[in-house]
Every structure is written in structure tokens, then in C-alpha cells.
């Protein structure tokens, strides 16, 4: 069985550039805490927009963080599960995808302007250098099971590649649906059908 990392992240990047600024996200995330708009024990909002290519604006929860993330020069919604991950990688991935998807959908609905995420691709981060050093061996061992799981999640064949070459960076995989389009609704239905959401 493929080991579940200590922390696991799923990021959906924006489909196109937006006029929305990170400052616009702050009140949305604060409101999410008031209204318990997304899953988790929501604690606080942190503003790192002054740091280039950083985590942007982060909604901190006990078991996970939701970030309007600016890393890699790609703005997106990054869900990082920090605790209580399922022990099975498929269940863990499905959980993170569903949480990221729900948050991205909520942002699209609530943010002013033209915010839209690209649901045909995602970055999966394995934040655990004890189990997952960013080496080609880790990629080879992980790519096949992740590809299999994600092809099922997306309902289409998925191409998976290593996100960073630098062995010091976190181990992360970029995945992209090969051909076709994927909607948030379709993705969510498939995740729910699997009945593995917690």
C-alpha cells in the first residue's frame, strides 16, 4: 500500500488571470469562519500577500489550511490537510480533492469579478520529506498509484508528472486530464459517488 504522507495538499490554479486581488479574499475568508462556510475547525486568517510567490492569504483550520495561494507564479486554491488523514492514499486524495473543490467552488461564487478555477489540472503536494523526498525514485513509486486513482476521480485518463526538479523542494505531482473538459460538478459527483468523503 502506498504510504500516506504526513501532510497532503491539492491545488487548483486559476483558469485565467483575474482582477481580483488577495486583499479581496481576506473578508471572504473571515466570513467563512463566521458562517462555517467550508469544512473544518476554522481558526484564523493570515495575510502573506507581501511575500512574492508565497502562500498568499491563508485560512487556518485545525486539521487543514485553505490558501489563496500565489506559489509558482500561479494563483490558485490550495488545500493542505495537516492532520487526521485517512490511512489509505486513495481515500486521502479523495478527501483533499473534495475539500479543495468545495472551497474553490465557494470562492467562485462569493468573490467579486471573474474568478474561475481550472479543474482539468491540479498540483498534489506530499509535505513529508521523511517518506517522500523529491527524488525520481519517489516519483516512480508514486506516479502509478496516483495516476490510477486520479483517472478514476476525473473520469478520464490523467497525465502525472513531477512538479519540481530540485531535490530539496517538496515532492509534488502535477496532474492534467488528457483531452476533454472537467467541470467542478462532474468532479464533485464522482467524488461523492465513491462514498469516501468524511
Amino acid at each position, binding site marked *: 500500500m502506498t*504510504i500516506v504522507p*504526513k*501532510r497532503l495538499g491539492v491545488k487548483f490554479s486559476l483558469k485565467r488571470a483575474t482582477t481580483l486581488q488577495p486583499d479581496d479574499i*481576506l*473578508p471572504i475568508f*473571515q*466570513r467563512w*469562519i*463566521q458562517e462555517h462556510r467550508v469544512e473544518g*475547525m476554522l*481558526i*484564523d*486568517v*493570515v*495575510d*502573506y*500577500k*507581501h*511575500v*512574492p*510567490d*508565497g*502562500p498568499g492569504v*491563508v485560512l*487556518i483550520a*485545525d486539521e487543514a*489550511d485553505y490558501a489563496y495561494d500565489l*506559489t509558482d507564479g500561479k494563483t490558485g486554491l490550495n488545500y493542505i490537510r*495537516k*492532520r*487526521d488523514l485517512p490511512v489509505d492514499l486513495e481515500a486521502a486524495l479523495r478527501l483533499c480533492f473534495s475539500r479543495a473543490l468545495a472551497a474553490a467552488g465557494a470562492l467562485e461564487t462569493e468573490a467579486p469579478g471573474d474568478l474561475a478555477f481550472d479543474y482539468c489540472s491540479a498540483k498534489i503536494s506530499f*509535505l*513529508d*520529506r*521523511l*517518506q517522500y523526498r523529491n527524488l525520481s525514485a519517489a516519483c516512480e513509486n508514486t506516479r502509478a498509484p496516483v495516476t490510477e486513482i486520479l483517472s478514476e476521480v476525473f473520469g478520464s485518463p490523467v497525465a502525472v508528472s513531477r512538479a519540481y526538479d*530540485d531535490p*530539496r*523542494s*517538496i515532492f509534488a505531482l502535477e496532474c492534467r486530464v488528457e483531452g476533454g473538459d472537467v467541470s467542478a460538478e462532474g468532479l464533485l459527483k464522482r467524488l461523492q459517488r465513491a462514498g469516501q468523503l468524511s
Partner: protein
Amino acid sequence: MTTWKEILKDDIPPEMGKLIDTYEAQMELRKQGKLDEKVFAEARLRKGVYGQRYDNGQRHDGVRTRDLAYPSGETVKGPDTLWDAPGMQRIKIPYGGLTAEQLEVLSELADEYSDGILHITTRQDIQLHYVHIDDTPDLMRRLAAVDITTQEACGNSVRNITACTLAGVCHDEVFDVSPYADAMTHFLLNHDDVQDFGRKFKVAFSGCAGHACGLVKMHDLGLLAQTRDIDGQTVRGFTVFVGGGLGTVPHQAKVLAEFCTEAELLPLTQAVARVFARLGEKKNRNRARIKFLVAKLGIDEFRREVEAELQTVPPDDRHTGYIADLSDFTYHPAKAGMALNGAQLPDGFAEWYRTNVYRQVQTGYSTITLNTPLGDFTAEQGFQLADIARRYVGDNIRLSVEQNVILRWVADADLPAIYRDLCEIGLGDANAGTIVDITTCPGTDTCKLGIASSRGLTAELRTRLIEKINLLPDAVRELKIKVSGCFNSCGQHHVADIGFFGNSRRSGNHKMPHFQVVLGGQWQQNAGSYGLAVGAVPAKSVPEVLEALTNRYVAERGQGENFQTWVKDLGRKEIKAMLQPFMKLPSFEERPAHFSDWGDSRVYTIDDIGVGECAGEVVSLFSMEISKAESTQFEALLALDDGDYHMADEQAYKAMVMAARALVRTKYLDVGEDYDKIVQEFRSRFYDTELIYDRFAKGKFARYLFKRHEGAPARVDEDYAHQIIDETQLFIENVHSAEQRINGVIVA
């Protein structure tokens, strides 16, 4: 599954490894409710594991205060501090010196245990926020493997020892203070004489009197480099300052010794520490810093106490042993020094060169400052910075008290190239050390004591000032701004030209975030004088206040007049009159935005303020030491569970000796760590006198220690291991009871 402990076992210095294991055992005992929460809190703080805002399980969401139902329920890691609540990990970086490898490990930890951000503090530490306590032992092991410790980073201990970032490359220094800061760090770390303070103790070194760098006059102990001719020899030494500090009530340090030689430095420091431990306030934490003791006794009486104490300091080879090693402290630049050679300069280089580059005393080399916004950089920037360091400067990285990264020993010919590389990773901003390079504490973002958002205000001022930096007159560009989220001065607002600290005011039925304006503090002359508080203004009015102040300064200042003099000449009354229009409070209906803080859309409240942990927990020396004995006994139990009976025996024996030592030290502080000596002292002071005697068992439990001290049995099996662990438990209980009877009063 493999663990970090296993992987790094050959890389972690044994002493550091043991301390981390002890801490991990203490965590387990606390979770089981077997270790008092105050004792654990102080043990945790001394590992740099700090609480954060909302860790009491409550947060005001802008409408009402809500409970945060952490999964750990009622389990606490200190008074009113819930176990699962995210916390801050402070990491000591002595004199701010880092290697490229250390920077990489710190970046890894930020990725995996924090939120991807490394924060530089005003004491040259690194802080990681939103760290779960369960992750801290492994985090510490990974640091220990690259020779970084978090030991005594918080709590009532000697905090990170700071020094000028230009030490060793400066034109004006008397000599390089770096190796002395290094030696003192090693000497004081875990030293017996620094374990019983009522509050923290901050030490700083400076190489010269005139510049700011070391800020020795605002420290508990400040060391200013000097030389003297003695018998025709030039002798190195220090002017010793004591009793300085910012905080709510700032004190300028007093001169304890005009000149102490390098040979006298460590014993004198030890004597100061012993006086502070012996006479310093322990109950009232608000008056427990050494500055209050110095003020209470007067510097002359304090000096007499130190001189008398010096006579009782036991001989120690380390007092002078370090001097022979000073010459080993050398710098290894990555490249030979070489002048700028007419290469084409990139756009923006000239401005960056003007503000961020310092020509070293060594020909052909420069030191550069990376203007790090709010002291933050990402883990990815950390990796890239390590690459840049290796390429251009080697391991010559430092962190500054102005929350920037410093690269030393850049060959001048490389300046254009390193500037290009820094721009590529977002760290090529000019204007280091200018008005845009604002210092700030964490404030309400993460600090339990924060009243207003110092980081929010800093980010706003920085954005506005960068936009118009090229239009500002030099006199304004050169000003220093420092911001604290409350009166406790972590942002060092007292020593800025223009300082702000957070407070609040009421308007109608609402609270409004405010900042007190503090003007005319002196950064130069080692924090030569403190500023004047002139009035509180709404947080949202601070940018206008700043503009009004600087405009008037530019318009009215005399030829060459600096800000401090201008403020003094203008007078508090006139300045207050200038601020008066901003001090009028609008109603909530008139200006609702004024009732939210910078970077926070919630309606402002002060309901989230908690009890700070800066002061640490006032826990007796005995309590701290006996808790270590208990955690060692717990390790013996773990060894027994693992079937390692020899290890179980060793740990149980060690726990008994540690418990005995805890009691002996209530009478005899300098007992040391030799087992024979400890047991001998324990026997003569507590067994022969029958002070340790149990009402019914008499001296039976003490004899467990004596028996084991004579030697382990020939056969160490499971039954024996069980037995000695049980005996250890009984002995520790016996020591607890005896200490309560004797009340632990130090008599010698």
C-alpha cells in the same frame, strides 16, 4: 515506519538528543496528566515552544466570541493553553549566523510543520508559526542534526545572544565580537546558574559605541568591545552594561564595569546571573527583569553584590579556555575579493547599491542587506537563497535585528550578478534601512498579547511608502519606523525615530484600534535614548499622521538637524497639538472602517487578548529539575517496554540521581553533575540528617539510590528492570515529599 529519530541518530549531538528525548517524555507525561501543567509550560517554553493567539479555545469572529473545539478537548500544554491549538516555534540563531545547510533545513521545516513562511525576529531568531506541539520533537531533531538548538529560546532563560551583523567586516569596530557571542552562547546554554531566573535575560554584543548594531544599552546585559593597554600589551575586553530593557517601562542600562578583560567576561557574566537568580523578583513577573533589580539596589550596590558573588563562582576551565579557540573563528568567503570591474549594471542596481550595500573593511568585499518584508520569506526563497549563498558568499549568512537577511563577503565584482539573482527570487528590493524597511512584531496576527495589528499597519505603510519613495527627501527616507502590537516593545518602538505601539480607545459602544505615537528614539549610539509617547491615534489614521509629521519635519528642520533634535525642540505640547485633529474619534456610523484593524475585516474587539507566555511560568528550580527526573524515569519505562533492560536500568539510575540532585541543589547550587559528588552530598545533607526520612519507611527509599550507586547487578533481566523502575518511582515520590517538608529554601 522509519522515524526522524532513527534516521538522524548519528547526526544529533548526544546531549542535544537527550534533551529532546526528555522533552518528548515530558509531553507524554503531560498528556497523561502526570506532569503539572505549569511545570510543563515552563519546560515547553524553554524549548522555544510558545503559545499563540486563540490557544485558549476562544476567538471573536467579528460578531461574537466562539469556542474553538480542538479535538484534544480539555488537555492543556500550560495554563489555559489547549494541546491541539497551533503554536509558535522559536529557533535560536546565535548572533544571527547561519550556514547555507542550516537555512535549507529551516526551510524544510517551514514547509512541513508550519505555513511555508520563515519569520525573522528582532532578536535574530527564526520563528515558525501554526506549529502543532506534537511535531516539535522531530522539528528539534532535524535542527539539532545541523547544530541548531531551540533550547532556552523562550521562558525564564538566557535568550538568543545577539550581535552586530557587521561584526568582523566593520570599519568602525574595535574588534570582531562574533566569536565572543558564540563562546558565551555555548557557555550559558543549560548552565546551572541560569536555570532559576524570575524572568528572561537578554544579552547583546556590540563592536563599537557609535552605531546602533548591537543595541547594548537596551539589554539586560550589554557588552561593548574595548581594548586597553596593560603592561604594554593591548588587551581585549568589554564595557559591561547591565539592567537595560524596553518593555512597558524602558530602562537605559547602567555601566557595571568600565572594562572587563576577555578572561573576566564569562565569570563576570556568571556572577551577574547568580545575583539575578538569587535576588531577582520571582513572584511579581511585571517587576522580575533584572532592570528592576538594578534600579532597586542602585548600580553601586548591584556591583558590590556581583563582586562578592564573583568570589563564590567555582573555578571552570571554560572561563578562559575559549580564548585559545578565538583564532579558530574565521570566515571563508566563496570567492576572492575583487573590485567592480565596469561590467554592465542591471536596472535598479544603482539604487539598490546605495541603500543595501556596505563596503567591508576588507578590500574588494561588500556586505549586502536583503530587504525582507515584515521579516518574512518563503521556504522556496530559503532554498534559493542557500544556492545564492553557496555561489557567492559561502556560509556567511546572518539575520539582523531589523528582520532582514544579510549576506557578507560578497566580492564586489559579483554585486551586479547577485543583485540579478536576488531580484529573480523576489529579494532584490532596494531601500534597506530606510523608512520603508519597517520593523514589526507579530502583533494580533499571532501574539496572545497583541492589541492592534502591527503587521497589518506595517504592510500598509510599507506599500504606501514604496509608491512614493523616490519623491521623499533624504531626511525622511533615512527615518526609522518600528511598530509593536502592544506596549511590550517587541517591535522596539522606543528606539525608532517614529515608533508606534498598539492600544485601543472607545467610541460609543465600540472599541477602535489605536496606535500610540512615540517620537524621537535613538537607534544609533547602541539605542542611545528612548522616544517620547505623544498621543494615541486611530490605527486607520496612522498613514495620515506619518505624512503630517514628516512634512512638518522637512519644512521646519534646521540645516542638518536630525529628527531627535527636531522633536525635542518642537516639544511634546506642540506635537500633541499637531496630532490633535487625528485624535478625534468618529462614531461607528460615520466611519465604520475605522472600527476594523489593518488587514482584518472583522469589527475590532479586544476580547481575543489572552495571557502572554513571554514571562514564562514562575516555577521553582526544584520543580523544573524533578520534572526532568520524572521524564527520565518515563524513558526507563519505555526501554522496559522495548525489552531493553540495560537501558531501563541506566535510565532509572539516572532518574534517581537527577531527583537527588534536584533536592541537593535547593541547599547547594554548585553541586555539579558528577554522580559520586551528588550522592555524597545527598547522603550527608538529607540522609544522615534524616531530612529525607519517610514517616514510616524511614530511609528505605534513599537506600535504593545508594544500592544502585554501588553498581548494577551482574544480571539485568526483566524482573530486575521492573524492580528498579518501581524503586525509582518511590524514591522520586520520597524526594517530592521531603522537598515539601523542607520547602526548598536555598540556604547556601
